């Protein structure tokens, strides 16, 4: 009986352990600009995903001409977090800025047997009329074959979704 309980517990924990150890999300993903919503104020975007237990680090490496920027949002699928420097891939020709000194509440969860990462954020923003909050809903979806990643992003304020397709460029570390 004890062996059965042990076996059952192992089977339940196996997906999480397997995800942490060998998540197909992990690695570097390069934006396919031709097949994605147009970036604005950026020319290139490489996404690096690292999974460590319930934490998922989403590192955004951006380029604008000769300028390079790297920013990481570490979300937690086990609990909500407040990120002080939440990075949003902005449309940079709009006068919308991160609100100074404000943290962003972020919630994340695995869906679809670990093939979709859902990230929800209430992003404090500065606009010309003062401050407001944008609800940001993102789904990072593994495409069959695990060589493509689809990011669908919805803003509470935007009438069109932003759809980004990434191609894997390296295996996980």
């Amino acid at each position, binding site marked *: 009986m004890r062996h059965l309980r042990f076996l059952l517990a192992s089977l339940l924990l196996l997906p999480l352990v397997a995800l942490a150890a060998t998540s197909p999300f992990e690695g570097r993903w390069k934006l396919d600009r031709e097949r994605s919503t147009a970036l604005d104020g950026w020319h290139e975007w490489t996404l690096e995903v690292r999974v460590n237990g319930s934490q998922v680090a989403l590192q955004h490496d951006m380029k604008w001409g000769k300028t390079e920027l790297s920013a990481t949002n570490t979300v937690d699928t086990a609990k909500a977090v407040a990120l002080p420097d939440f990075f949003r891939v902005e449309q940079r020709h709009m006068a919308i800025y991160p609100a100074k000194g404000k943290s962003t509440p972020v919630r994340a969860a695995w869906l679809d047997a670990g093939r979709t990462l859902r990230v929800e954020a209430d992003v404090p923003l500065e606009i010309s*009329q003062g401050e407001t909050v944008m609800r940001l809903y993102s789904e990072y979806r593994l495409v069959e074959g695990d060589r493509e990643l689809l990011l669908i992003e919805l803003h509470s304020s935007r009438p069109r979704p932003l759809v980004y397709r990434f191609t894997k460029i390296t295996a996980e570390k």
Partner: protein
Amino acid sequence: MRSPLFLLLVLSLGLMPLGHAATAARTGAFMHFDGDWRVASGLPEKALLISLQGLANRTAPQLYIIHPPDFQWEITAPLFEFYQRKHGVQFTELKTADEALTRFAASAKGYVIWDPAVGASLNVAFTIAGLEDVVVVTPALVPLVEKHGLKKHEDLTGRYTGQTDAQIYTDAVNRYWARCTHDAIMLMGGHRGAVRQPAMADWGIRQKMFFHDLSANPVHAEELALEKRLFSELKPGSIVFGWHAYGKDTEEQHTTLLSSYGLKMEGLHNLPNLSFNCQFTFTPGFKFTNNHHVALDAKLTAEPKVYLSFVQSDSIGIGVWTKPGRGKLPFAWQVTMNWTKFSPAALEYFHESATPNDYFIGGLSGPGYMYPNHIPADRFPLLMKEAREMMATLDEHVMEIMDNSAADGNVGNTDLTKETVDRYYAAFPDVIGFINGYGPSRTRDLRDTRPMLSYDYYIDPRRPREEVAADLNELIALNATRPYFLLVHVRESNDVNSLVEIVKQLSGPTEVVPIDVFLKLAASKKTYTTRYQDPDEPKHFKGYK
């Protein structure tokens, strides 16, 4: 019998030219340029002809150049037609360099040879051209100019081989700077390497300017030091003509540097025909009248809706003005105010061809392109006095400001310090208001009835139109308080027709209004915050201190 004296008088009257009381018709020559500016092919002949133009136009407007429709400056053909129609200039075409030299070689005293393998030597040659009245040639063009009786004045081939630009220009400064004008300087940069476009060189030659393309990038320490020396020796309020050298430094670096000396920038390096244009005034009786939609002291009341206003601030000679659709939407056009001094016919042409929906505003930042956060405090009042005078001539009631010193291209930090904002309010008591930015910006204020608003959106011409509409709708959704004042900067290569389509896709009650109406409405209901540059915000370029 009539006396002989009477008969002589009658005879004289009969021989008197018709229209004696009228001004004699002007004559001139013109040439068509193609689009080949490669150093290995089309550039050398063009450099020769542009230098010849500068000399031929020294005391009279004799030679004008028409560029192809896809040249960056789109107005050369319309302005050519304007000179014929409004100024009565009768032009003769010159089809080749040989014909041009036949007509104008007498304007030159010789030639100077530049070395195509040493890019900076062309600029040194242009400097010599202005000082010594010589044309510039490569070795391959020597037979052509000698055929027209010109003799060698100087040969730069071999002089600068293997030297850096800092070394070359140091030598040129030592040899020639003292004899050049100190009212202006020619930053003949822009295109570098295999292609050069020194179309503004005629102007620099005519005015005896020192030509260079020194770098304002701190990594080029020697070039920067030499440039600082030149700037410090220019007279107060002088103009830096031309443009920064692509790939050596940035527009932001160079404009920051010259602004810190209280100097003005007037570009671009390829702006043609100033040696011709400067010799025409406005036509008799002409007076600038803007399409004002409100009186200076008018009071309007904003309704609970979204107000949009479109502005194009790149020089109107290179942009949307000649593209389809102008006139379908209210549009503000920032005028290069210094053209009142050296290209007034172009301004009159724009005025003449304006539709009721076209409105002219002053800028950028002052009497020339400058970054006001860096203008020395003691230079600011006199510069802005000059700006006010030009705005009065041009009947302009709105000043556009731009300071990209801390920006990263057309994104990033473009805000004005509070001190700068204070200075503008003090210097321009009679404007309707101010607008600020190039990309989006967030400097805003309202003092008495004069608002200062920044662009909430910049339209990149490459951005898909459906995303532009989505961007604008997102701004409208986020800025939910009504009225919302959405100021939009239109990059010069957009076209108005596409903007008409975008406006149709906007959500909710929206109204596109002219900028003077926009600012009056913004003064009536302040739904925007007061804000200045935050010292904590990152700066892409931190300056020279």
